[in-house]
């Protein structure tokens, strides 16, 4: 029996738009197990990013329950959710969320600084992660000089450096050509195999589905396993 990593029960999220209350997620239910690679597929505006941000503790739901590794996110305050992001959950936004004027090393180092890891240990973990991601030779290059594929690797390295149980990637292939996108998706598969990390990818690109062992469709705020 596999460990349950994510439990989502009857999740609702509304947005106010021009004075109207619009439901973006309508009673979403999902169970994710350790080692799952889940892909949530759906058109733009279906609520994929909102769902991922709620899982990362970056947004709060209006109703429902989310339990990640035994922590009920709906009961945690903002500080506890922030702590969760340095330990259990890592989130990779669509625009990578990197600081362009920082070097690769400085960007990947940030979660370790937040976690309060001592300098020597930090350096060892960082070099190991950058080597694993194949970007060790770029470690002193500023992020603004990197290509889209390299930036994506840096963003993944930053997410991976704290060895999270749950890795959330928002449209990781959206800004890449298919060759680079395939490499990134293979990297996710390798991370999943090597660390048994549960990975959730949201995408509007149906080709991403073949890299996942759990496939979900999110249409008009309703999530269904396919």
């Amino acid at each position, binding site marked *: 029996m596999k460990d349950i990593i994510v439990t989502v029960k009857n999740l609702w999220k509304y947005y106010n738009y021009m004075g109207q209350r619009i439901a973006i997620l309508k009673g979403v239910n999902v169970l994710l197990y350790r080692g799952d690679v889940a892909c949530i597929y759906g058109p733009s505006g279906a609520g994929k990013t909102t769902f991922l941000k709620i899982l990362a503790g*970056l947004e709060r739901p209006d109703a429902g329950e989310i339990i990640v590794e035994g922590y009920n996110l709906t009961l945690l305050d*903002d*500080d506890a959710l*922030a*702590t*969760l*992001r*340095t*330990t259990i959950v890592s*989130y990779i*936004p669509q625009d990578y*969320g*990197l*600081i*362009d*004027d*920082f070097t690769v090393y*400085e*960007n990947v180092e*940030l*979660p370790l*600084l*937040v*976690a*309060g890891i001592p300098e020597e240990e930090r350096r060892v973990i960082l070099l190991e992660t950058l080597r694993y991601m194949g970007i060790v030779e770029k470690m002193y290059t500023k992020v603004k000089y990197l290509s889209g594929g390299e930036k994506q690797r840096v963003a993944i390295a*930053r997410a991976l450096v704290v060895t999270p149980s749950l890795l959330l990637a928002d449209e990781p292939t959206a800004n890449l050509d298919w060759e680079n996108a395939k490499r990134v998706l293979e990297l996710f598969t390798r991370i999943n195999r090597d660390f048994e990390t549960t990975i959730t990818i949201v995408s509007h690109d149906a080709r991403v589905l073949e890299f996942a062992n759990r496939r979900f469709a999110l249409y008009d705020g309703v999530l269904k396993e396919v």
Partner: protein
Amino acid sequence: MHYKILIKTAKYSIKCNGFNYVMLYAFSLILYIITCPGNVTLAISLILSIIMLYASILSDKLNIAQLINAYNIVGLKRKEIALAFYIFVNIRILLITMVYIIAYPNFTVIAYLFVLSNIFIALVYHFSFQRG
């Protein structure tokens, strides 16, 4: 508190374009206050200083947004992010304050500048960044 992140933020503030504008302004401000001493000069310079600070933040708005976004993603707490922003901006406020210490060493004026600019910056943070 993650002081290394705060030091990184201060260094980043110095490297951003807006700091160069504040530096240029600081040099011209020293000349202005020394060559035209008086209360009118002082009043005008205080208003200009606050406008200059606002302009320097506006010019670095994307950098600040990137910084806050990255800090949020890696799990820095809200209060720590606000403190990082405060340090980012206060490096610039300190530079202008130093100009007044050199050119017009009057405690009341310096205190006014410091308090006013900080209130102003807090409002900018609240309305432009935290809500965004």
